């Protein structure tokens, strides 16, 4: 079936992430979809539920030295080092194109300190064409010896509060999976005012080049993503969806319609497609098609019927 623009075969795929309304639950994950323009020849961008852009910091970042990528079993490690053009150039160079797409754009933000997070949110406030912020709390807190903001309920809450205080759009907080108790972090950011929660970011991993006796990545450690992490992601999404009342967005190894359905059954109101975009750029759009077919085939009133519908 050659889907028309915006067409989901008549099926109701709309989902609400709090006050953020999406035409369908398929978003593209930060850092895996560039600034969307890279995909314009390959996919109908306006058929996506939304686009999450590469993480933006207050100042431009050069990123890590290469190699930045290592393939692993059913996954990959990345140590991009959050390379980005900085909030100023993002607004002047990237937003105009994104605004023209007529698709919700969610800006992923990151910082070295609580203040920086607040500052970026402030800089983005009032910028037209931004539907929400996604707060990447997996970054190292420079003031606390580089421990990730996402590793601790207090720091996670502090970042959330700082962003909420400055933002004029809904705030989605993106959790790090490298923690003992993900539900506790989720509850903390909900209490700090988050409008929704997305998870998971990458698992910290490493690969070694035996011949050179060196880490494959120049940065030594990298973030593990792809199908390999799906079982961990699904478990955490289930745990978080049970622990909070705000909407949860599932991420981790999603590459097929069935993967997306698993996350939604576990409680996700929407999903993000990440690494799969590299392997099959059409994948996210195919999932939109697939969800439409699922709703029709299963005679559902809406895709919303399956959110959290897991029978245990």
């Amino acid at each position, binding site marked *: 079936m050659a889907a028309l623009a915006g067409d989901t075969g008549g099926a109701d795929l709309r989902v609400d992430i709090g006050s953020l309304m999406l035409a369908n639950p398929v978003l593209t994950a930060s850092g895996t979809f*560039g600034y969307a323009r*890279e995909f314009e020849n390959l996919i109908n961008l306006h058929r996506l539920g939304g686009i999450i852009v590469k993480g933006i910091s207050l100042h431009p970042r050069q990123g890590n*030295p290469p190699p930045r990528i290592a393939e692993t079993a059913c996954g990959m490690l990345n140590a991009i080092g959050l390379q980005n053009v900085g909030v100023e150039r993002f607004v002047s160079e990237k937003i105009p194109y994104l605004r023209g797409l007529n698709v919700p754009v969610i800006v992923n933000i990151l910082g070295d300190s609580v203040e920086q997070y607040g500052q970026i949110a402030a800089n983005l406030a009032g910028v037209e064409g931004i539907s929400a912020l996604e707060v990447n709390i997996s970054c190292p807190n420079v003031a606390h010896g580089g421990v990730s903001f996402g590793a601790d309920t207090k720091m996670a809450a502090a970042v959330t509060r700082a962003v909420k205080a400055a933002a004029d759009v809904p705030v989605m907080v993106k959790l790090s999976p490298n923690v003992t108790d993900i539900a506790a972090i989720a509850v903390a950011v909900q209490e700090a005012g988050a409008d929704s929660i997305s998870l998971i970011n990458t698992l910290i991993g490493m690969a070694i080049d035996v011949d050179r006796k060196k880490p494959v990545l120049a940065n030594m450690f990298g973030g593990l993503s792809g199908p390999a992490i799906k079982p961990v992601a699904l478990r955490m999404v289930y745990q978080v969806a049970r622990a909070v009342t705000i909407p949860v967005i599932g991420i981790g190894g999603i590459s097929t319609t069935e993967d997306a359905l698993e996350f939604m059954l576990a409680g996700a109101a929407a999903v993000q497609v990440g690494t799969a975009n590299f392997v099959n750029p059409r994948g996210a759009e195919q999932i939109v098609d697939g969800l439409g077919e699922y709703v029709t085939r299963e005679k559902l009133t809406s895709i919303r019927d399956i959110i959290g519908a897991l029978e245990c």
Partner: protein
Amino acid sequence: MTQYQEKASITRVERLSTQTLRLTMRSPLIAGAARPGQFIMIRPSERHDPLLGRPFSIHQATGSGTLQIYFNVVGRGTAILASARVDDELDLLGPLGRGYQLVKDAPACLIGGGLGIAPLLFLAKERSRGGHHAADDRIILGGRSRADVEPLVEDYAQFGLSLHCITEDGTFGEKGLATDLLITHPLSTDTVIYGCGPQPMLAALHGICVKSGNPCQVSVESVMACGMGACLGCTVMGHDDNYVHVCVDGPVFDARDLQWQL
């Protein structure tokens, strides 16, 4: 620059030496848009292991929809490609990246080392088609040994460029490195050099061109996840201490725009 994700069906599999193969595919959209020096990503498997696509230079592309790659079996992905059979389908993405900038009125020297000779065939063809003085153009094919060079000589010979072969062990053509021929047979200073090959060869080539003043375009490699500017994984250091991305800023660069470790 339009790109396509296309299912290509294999029409021919040639084993050119123990480690090298050439695959011919029907891929009309990609072949129709391709320029010399561009590359494609090939997903070696529909399954998740190996996961990522592999980048390959476009060895040959025809208006009639034929696309070729020439490659070395070095790991899992290339081993899978080496077991492909006629009529198998491959998932391709391309054409990707910025290819060689053909400089119309200047003589050209194409210089390839090892698998680096892959993209030069397409370049040689475009050069000869462009109505250039092909006879003034030169192509140097270098390799470690006979098997690296000989199987492709006939293909390169058809375009009427003056053809020089050189191998490290002297088993085919002269004995030495491809770049040696630039020293022994110096080029006119207006000759544009188009290079492709392993990093040390390109670094040497750059060194020679800096001295001689010849413009030099080189195709470089890097680890890639997406091949299309989305992952920011394929960085190399630019001359101005800013990273560039091989998949979108390259793979062909003016050699002076990169930092070289000699």
